């Protein structure tokens, strides 16, 4: 790559970064050098960028457009920063200011795109679409947009607790469909519908959806040092096949709404894959009757509509979008009587819990008797256990390793036996082993135990089990803090890791700690212990990890500097 093609590739990289989804943009090119370069860019995070400047943002406290004083950073990306600001000319009202980086502000195409998108917003006047207050240029030529500030949560945040109530889903989808249909009628395709881009604004009569980011926030999310692979994938999962291959049309928005509706009702997306390149193949394969099997209580019509919306061929999807969302909403309201039971079922697909609570007959009637036969199948010991023996590398243990993570062997003495592995990452990295569908079922039904020897040196060292569908992921982190180590049962990873915390006694000795987690399917809760002592009980997990069912170790940066952790093996066992 660093040969005669340098100038061409660097030009094409810069072009790709101008699109909302650089990897998707180059995926279809079939040019492995280019795809690799873009993938490296996306993975590189803040590599070699000056972190000090980012922390002490020089714009805070300054005024743009002569009236909007920047108060706090809401988000940032490679192309710009999003601030909360006060409009000093109108009663100190709260507004959102999006400021393009100077790095991009001198690029004609980026300026053009920024202005085009501002133009789109001024054309659209709908209660379900965010409005544009102002736009302009600061002294040094950087462009900015001003949007109203809304209190509320994103649909993504609402989905953190699992599937949503069917009647609520019906109302939201109907209103989102109206807003998207309004835009379509004016020739505007959203192109990036996903739960992150739907704000649920609280009004007197409940929450109402507001579409944000008609491409504009992509300026902040798209191309840059901060966007990560997961971030990018967040968008790709909602993109129609023709959009992934480069061309979005109105039917692409219908597809995205199909994925969103699926997630609102089933708690997980129809397709998951490790890279965006694998998505079109999955999309071509289709979903079959998968939705009906997940939510039989909603009847066949809902499943059929979602299957149609997710059709690989854009021409086969329902149109116009309002007809799709209205019919879906009508059928959801018809089926809403059963939704509480179904939600219960989808959230806690623990057969033992069902049996214990006497709900067997109801659930059995809803989903058929197949699960009962399954329950009686004896477990093969070799299938119950996943091991990463002490001293093995990821390769030896058959674990996948994400490219953000570097593995280095630690030896007892130079040339001696490998006793552990040190993992380094500038961002976030994971070692994982996928659970087979059978293992996933067993783990949920019979419970599991996970133990690992580990020590965080900088940042977080974590282990976890991702259940895959609606029951949440269970993740325990050890965090290196100034005077020792803190244990965290993770409940949130966005905007920094958070969860139930417990302090460990200070230890300066470089010893590995034994971190153990045990999941009880009856209560659907886990306990976490360190070196044999139980520190956290009744941990209900969280729903943000969506990498597919797996057992994993993870290393995370805590503050943007390099994260480092030592692991001396891992053992996962499904209870017999």
């Amino acid at each position, binding site marked *: 790559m660093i040969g005669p093609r340098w100038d061409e590739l660097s030009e094409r990289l810069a072009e790709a970064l101008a699109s909302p989804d650089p990897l998707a943009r180059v995926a279809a090119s079939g040019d492995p050098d280019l795809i690799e370069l873009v993938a490296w*860019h996306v993975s590189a995070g803040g590599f070699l960028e000056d972190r000090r400047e980012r922390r002490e943002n020089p714009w805070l406290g300054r005024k743009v457009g002569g009236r909007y004083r920047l108060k706090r950073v809401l988000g940032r990306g490679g192309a710009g920063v999003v601030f909360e600001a006060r409009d000093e000319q109108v009663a100190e009202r709260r507004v959102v200011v999006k400021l393009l980086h100077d790095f991009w502000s001198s690029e004609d195409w980026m300026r053009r795109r920024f202005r085009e998108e501002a133009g789109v917003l001024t054309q659209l006047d709908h209660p379900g679409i965010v409005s544009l207050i102002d736009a302009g240029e600061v002294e040094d030529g950087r462009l900015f947009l001003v949007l109203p500030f809304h209190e509320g949560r994103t649909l993504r945040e609402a989905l953190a607790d699992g599937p949503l109530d069917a009647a609520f889903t019906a109302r939201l989808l109907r209103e989102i469909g109206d807003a998207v249909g309004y835009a379509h009628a004016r020739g505007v395709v959203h192109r990036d519908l996903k739960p992150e881009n739907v704000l649920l604004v609280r009004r007197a009569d409940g929450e109402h959806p507001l579409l944000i980011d008609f491409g504009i926030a992509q300026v902040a999310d798209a191309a840059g040092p901060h966007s990560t692979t997961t971030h990018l994938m967040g968008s790709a999962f909602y993109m129609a096949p023709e959009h992934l291959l480069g061309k979005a049309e109105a039917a692409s928005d219908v597809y995205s709404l199909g994925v969103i509706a699926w997630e609102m009702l089933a708690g997980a997306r129809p397709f998951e894959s490790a890279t965006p390149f694998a998505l079109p193949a999955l999309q071509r394969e289709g979903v079959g009757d998968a939705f009906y099997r997940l939510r039989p209580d909603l009847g066949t019509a809902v499943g059929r509509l979602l299957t149609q919306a997710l059709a690989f061929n854009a021409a086969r999807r329902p149109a116009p979008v309002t007809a799709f969302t209205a019919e879906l909403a009508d059928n959801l309201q018809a089926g809403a009587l059963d939704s509480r039971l179904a939600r219960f079922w989808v959230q806690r697909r623990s057969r033992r819990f069902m049996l214990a609570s006497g709900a067997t007959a109801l659930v059995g009637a809803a989903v058929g008797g197949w699960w009962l036969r399954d329950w009686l199948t004896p477990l093969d010991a070799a299938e119950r256990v996943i091991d990463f023996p002490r001293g093995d590398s990821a390769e030896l243990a058959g674990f996948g390793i994400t490219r953000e993570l*570097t593995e*280095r062997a630690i030896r007892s003495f130079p040339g001696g036996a490998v006793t552990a592995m040190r993992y380094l990452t500038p961002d976030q990295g994971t070692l994982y082993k996928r659970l087979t569908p059978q293992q996933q079922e067993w783990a949920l039904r019979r419970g599991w135990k996970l133990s690992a020897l580990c020590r965080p040196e900088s940042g977080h060292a974590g282990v976890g089990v991702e259940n895959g569908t609606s029951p949440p992921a269970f993740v325990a982190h050890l965090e290196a803090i100034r005077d020792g180590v803190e244990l965290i049962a993770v409940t949130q990873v966005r905007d920094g890791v958070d969860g139930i915390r417990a302090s460990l006694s200070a230890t300066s000795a470089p010893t590995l700690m034994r971190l153990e987690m045990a999941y009880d399917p009856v209560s659907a809760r886990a306990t976490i212990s360190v070196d044999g002592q139980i520190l956290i009980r009744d941990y209900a997990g969280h729903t943000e990890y969506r990498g597919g069912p797996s057992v994993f170790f993870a290393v995370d940066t805590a503050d943007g500097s390099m994260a480092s952790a030592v692991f001396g093996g891992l053992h996962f066992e499904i209870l017999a």
Partner: protein
Amino acid sequence: MPEPGEITSLLHRLRSGDRAAEDRLVEKAYPELHRIAEAHFRHERAGHLLQPTALVNEAWQKFVALDALELSDRVHFLSLCSRLMRQILVDHARRRATHERAVESMRIDDRLEADALDLDRALRRLAEAQPRAARVVELRYFGGLSTEEIAQCLDVSPATVKRDWLAARAWLYGQLYGDQA
């Protein structure tokens, strides 16, 4: 500490083709850069590799008031400093690696040294094939120069500097971490 006037006149001599002026400038700048860097190594347990720009800026402020020189002088001087700073970081990493190779320590510092050396190796490879792109990285990462300053220094357009930076950064990341997947 050299006088601001001396730096300016050395830079003027350098621009008029006097190579001896460069040696003299290095002689002036190196000890100061080195001293500042060492002070940071002692106090910043981790992360010094991430902050060479700050070191060079600190050195710069010690030498001359920011506006005492013409822009072109500043650019030349920082360009020189960026090269020196890269050398200092690499020397430091090598020294540490030699001292501590025998000890399998469980400390976090050692990885930074490894990274400094890995980055240096990757930059050398880049410099062989794409000298301009390697220079852009050196000036931006080790010297803290802005896109405009780099463009002026290398006598190319700012657009070229940006493209080189994006591609080189991605490529370097791939060399350091990309094969781990």
